């Protein structure tokens, strides 16, 4: 039984290699004219945010697929992906905050994208929390799939919030170096390689995480196969005369 779960080692190697390449490239790419070396945060911040989208989209797909097929495999994929998505969102958030302090002068501001990213982070934390509320695999899969689908509404909200907000309020800040800064080809390459590297990291983590879920399920099955007394055996005949 135990042998069915294959423990793979290549994901760790892939993660190490791709991160090394991406790091090197981000270091040799030029400093920004306005931001200086701070711009290097972008090579992590942006891929992390995009991979968070990817991860949550996979959760969405896994959730839909589970509800359609009722195959628990899809639920495992959705769960693993949501967890990794939370890491990536956390990374993008914290790097964004670190970046915000020197550029905007504050750690946090009520920009729509920031707000929505923050909310997205919590929605998927909620997703993970919901999964912990029940042991029953089918109930868990059913409930969390619904949330996995609802949660996906966040992705366009986060992405388009920048556009929407600008139409209503003043732009959040003066420095948002999307366009011009990326004219430099080495910077662009560093960004693209960064995204690729993060994609590999994502896939590798997925493989490991699903592996772990399998192991957990195995352990649970073994635990459940142990014959314990049923609930009713705790009730005995009254002993009159006591008390």
């Amino acid at each position, binding site marked *: 039984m135990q042998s069915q779960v294959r423990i793979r080692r290549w994901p760790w190697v892939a993660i190490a290699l791709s991160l090394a390449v991406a790091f090197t490239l981000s270091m040799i790419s030029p400093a920004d004219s306005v931001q200086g070396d701070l711009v290097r945060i972008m090579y992590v911040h942006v891929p992390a945010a995009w991979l968070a989208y990817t991860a949550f989209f996979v959760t969405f797909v896994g959730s839909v697929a589970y509800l359609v097929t009722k195959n628990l495999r899809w639920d495992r994929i959705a769960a693993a992906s949501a967890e990794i998505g939370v890491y990536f969102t956390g990374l993008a958030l914290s790097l964004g905050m670190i970046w915000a302090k020197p550029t905007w002068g504050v750690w946090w501001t009520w920009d729509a994208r920031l707000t929505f990213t923050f909310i997205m982070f919590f929605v998927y934390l909620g997703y993970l929390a919901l999964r912990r509320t029940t042991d*029953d695999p089918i109930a868990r899969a059913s409930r969390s799939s619904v949330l996995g689908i609802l949660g996906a509404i966040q992705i366009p909200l986060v992405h388009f919030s920048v556009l929407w907000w600008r139409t209503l309020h003043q732009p959040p800040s003066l420095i948002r170096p999307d366009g011009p800064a990326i004219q430099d080809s080495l910077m662009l390459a560093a960004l693209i390689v960064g995204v690729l590297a993060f994609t590999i990291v994502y896939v590798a983590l997925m493989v490991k995480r699903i592996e772990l879920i399998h192991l957990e399920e195995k352990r649970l099955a073994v635990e459940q196969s142990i014959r314990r007394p049923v609930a009713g055996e705790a009730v005995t005949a009254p002993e009159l005369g006591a008390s």
Partner: protein
Amino acid sequence: MTTGFWHQVRAVIDRDLLRERRQGDMLWITIPFGAIALLLIPLAIGTDAVLLREIGPGMYWVIVMLFGVLVAVSRASRETLPQQDASALLGLDPAAGFVGRTASSAVFLLIFEVVVGVVAVGLYDISLIGIGWLVTTMLLVAIGLALLGTLTAAIVNSSTAGAALVPLLVAPLSVPLLLGATQTYDGLQGGYSILSWVLLMVAVVLVVSIIGVLTARPLQET
């Protein structure tokens, strides 16, 4: 099946409205509180007429949002296990139950919006330009919040720990509604286009309705 579906939906709506009328805490506790809240804000932040006119509509919508969702969640989860069992064994289609509960919640939220709205207009000197659109907004918000509340109650149903998730589920989806509502009002005042905001609200309502109806069965798994 289809005629049976709407038949069941109507039965659930009638049941909920009747129960609420007999019980009456919505009427006597929630609505007065919403009104009192609006009354308290000027007391709390000072009675500067300009400031109040500026924040009035926003506050109105915030209060509708807060109460709305809380009311919808508590209403939707007001069935005991034996009551749920009995309804299930009557062959109540989970989707019909969802639609019915949502509809009755929406009716209450609409009443809440209207009563509290009258108070808001009185207190904050709110302009009613584009009343047709305002009514549309109120309708969309009532339906949207009712949907969110009902769906949320279904997702966290029975799992006590799940209660923690209610705000997490509700907030992100109600934010677009809230933004849509406030921006529609601002748009009407400023005379610029509100179509995209109305569409945003319609989109939220549609998406949540579809998800709610399609996932009603799986959500019954305990």
